[in-house]
């Protein structure tokens, strides 16, 4: 199991790193084996940053990530490699995931040279053959080709196959189908479902609510780096509690509605309430918060369903209490 414990990321921006940009704030959730978690948020909400922190491609500013109870922060060299044996990622843009001057199957060679240097050629080829078939790719159609000779769907599945060469436990899938056309999207989605049934834990990052709803057991809704609502997917979608989530879900059929528009229609946050950028008050107003105000926490709505701080309407508030 992979656990994120209140992780935050602050980027230094501006000249001489003078400005701080909080891209992710205090995010916690677990990725369990055989489970898909969708991390949903608009562009710039910090989804990729969360994924990259899990993949140790960027440092965590605050908080910790543990794999089976072991903190992964200081893993380096051989330990880091062991981590990557179990935790892998696939990214949004299939074409930028391949070094354009090499053949696409070089992503396999890299895995071989770093993890299976001693494996005999024939055994390795058979292994590659096996993972390719498990992602429904025909080896002779994709091996020995340059990236631009393959379709986006083939490239993404090659990357999943690459991860499967390892002893994979967790896969971070960062918008992996958003650049694919409709016909290949479903293939890749089915592939993820298949991996899930094989016991993999998958973090499915997306900006598409219906996709998240379709594929995941759990949902985390991210807004400006903070979790606004999370929990079992059917509960988050069936009983949305945060105004932001409600607005999102109610506008799903209105395809034309853009995220920016939703932002505009939301009631403005009350100024001067501190850390949580968009809360209107602490949940359970009147009680003393058990955390400092700049560390917003989540309130429990029901079993396996949590919501970020805001003023609950009276009906919900009674539910929560």
């Amino acid at each position, binding site marked *: 199991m992979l656990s994120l414990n209140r992780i935050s990321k602050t980027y230094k921006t501006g000249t001489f790193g003078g400005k701080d940009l909080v891209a992710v704030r205090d995010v916690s959730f677990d990725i369990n084996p055989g489970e898909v978690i969708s991390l949903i948020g608009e562009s710039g909400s910090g989804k990729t940053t969360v994924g990259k922190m899990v993949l140790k491609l960027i440092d965590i500013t605050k908080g910790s990530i543990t794999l089976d109870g072991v903190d992964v922060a200081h893993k380096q060299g051989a330990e880091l490699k062991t981590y990557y044996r179990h935790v892998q990622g696939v990214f949004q843009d299939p074409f930028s995931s391949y070094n354009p001057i090499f053949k696409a199957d070089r992503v396999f060679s890299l895995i071989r040279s770093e993890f299976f240097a001693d494996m005999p050629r024939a055994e390795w080829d058979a292994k590659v053959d096996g993972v390719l078939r498990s992602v429904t790719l025909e080896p002779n159609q994709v091996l020995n080709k340059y990236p631009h000779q393959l379709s986006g769907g083939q490239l993404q599945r090659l990357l999943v196959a690459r991860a499967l060469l390892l002893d994979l436990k967790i896969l971070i899938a960062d918008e992996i189908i958003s*650049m694919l056309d409709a016909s290949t999207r479903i293939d890749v989605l089915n592939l993820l479902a298949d991996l899930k049934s094989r016991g993999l834990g998958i973090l499915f990052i997306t900006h598409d609510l219906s996709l998240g709803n379709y594929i995941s057991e759990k949902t985390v809704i991210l807004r400006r780096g903070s979790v606004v609502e999370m929990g079992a997917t059917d509960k988050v979608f069936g009983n949305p509690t945060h105004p932001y989530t409600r607005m999102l879900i109610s506008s799903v059929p209105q395809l034309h509605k853009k995220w920016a528009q939703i932002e505009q229609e939301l009631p403005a946050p009350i100024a001067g309430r501190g850390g949580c950028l968009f809360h209107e008050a602490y949940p359970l107003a009147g009680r003393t918060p058990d955390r400092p105000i700049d560390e917003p926490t989540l309130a429990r709505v029901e079993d396996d369903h949590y919501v970020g701080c805001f003023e609950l309407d009276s009906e919900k508030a009674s539910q929560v209490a």
Partner: protein
Amino acid sequence: MTAEFDPTMSPAAGDAEKAPTPKAKRARGEFLFFALRSKKFVVSVSILLFLILLAIFGPMIDTNDPLALGDLPMRQPTLDPGNWFGTTYFGEDVFAQFVNGLRASFFVGLLGGGLGALIGMMVGFVAGYRGGWIDEVLNMVTNVFLVIPTLAVLLVITSYLQARGVMFEAIFIGATSWPWAARAIRAQTFSLRSRDFIDLAKLSGRSGPKVIVFEIAPNMSSYLFLTYILLFGGAILIAASLDFIGLGPTGGMSLGLMMYNAVTWAALQLGVWWWFIPPGIGIIAAVGSLYVMNVGLDEIFNPKLRDI
């Protein structure tokens, strides 16, 4: 990278923009095709090859010691062996001086340019790839080297080192000419390092140096080659100027030194044109053709610059 999903966007549409230029296999054939079509490239490479052959074989054909004094001073060029370019005020064989000088010039270019490229690459790659405080420190060092008055430093060194070889000159030039290369390479590395395939290589367990050597450098190989050519030509030119103002190697021969001697012994006033014309043309031809070759190669590597 942050582009969000656009339902109208098919992978093909995304592909058109991002897809790399043609297949590598075809690229080799294509390189030759465009190379042979580029007049700049063909002409400059021919001149360079000719000069290089002259530098290699010239001293074997004309085995005269370029510094041996002869009995016939200021002899006009004739077809007699050992007198193809005439003789100097002291009766030295100008052709022997020329081919040996050419050799020294190419040696300085090769070594000085190579050293400059090596330092520039190390500094540029590390600064661009690592970023952060390492980048800031390396940037500062680069800036210091950019503003160092090279000539003043050389004057100081010269006053301490009585005997200086071609090797010293090459190393000095290499050690002072890298800053612009480091900057350019840093910028390129910086733009490459945020690409997804770099992250993927890291996820494959590749260490930083391996990522630089096997992922980043191959992507800018043509650029690195161009950088080296410019440093090569630059080193030849700097060496010639240093020699010409008397800061060159002691002993030995070089094109700049020939010019220096010709001017010192009033070849111009005496009308001994064969003394200074060959080294002058040699320097201009070598450096000029390197620069023209650079422009030609740039057009070949960079399809946008091709005039079709």
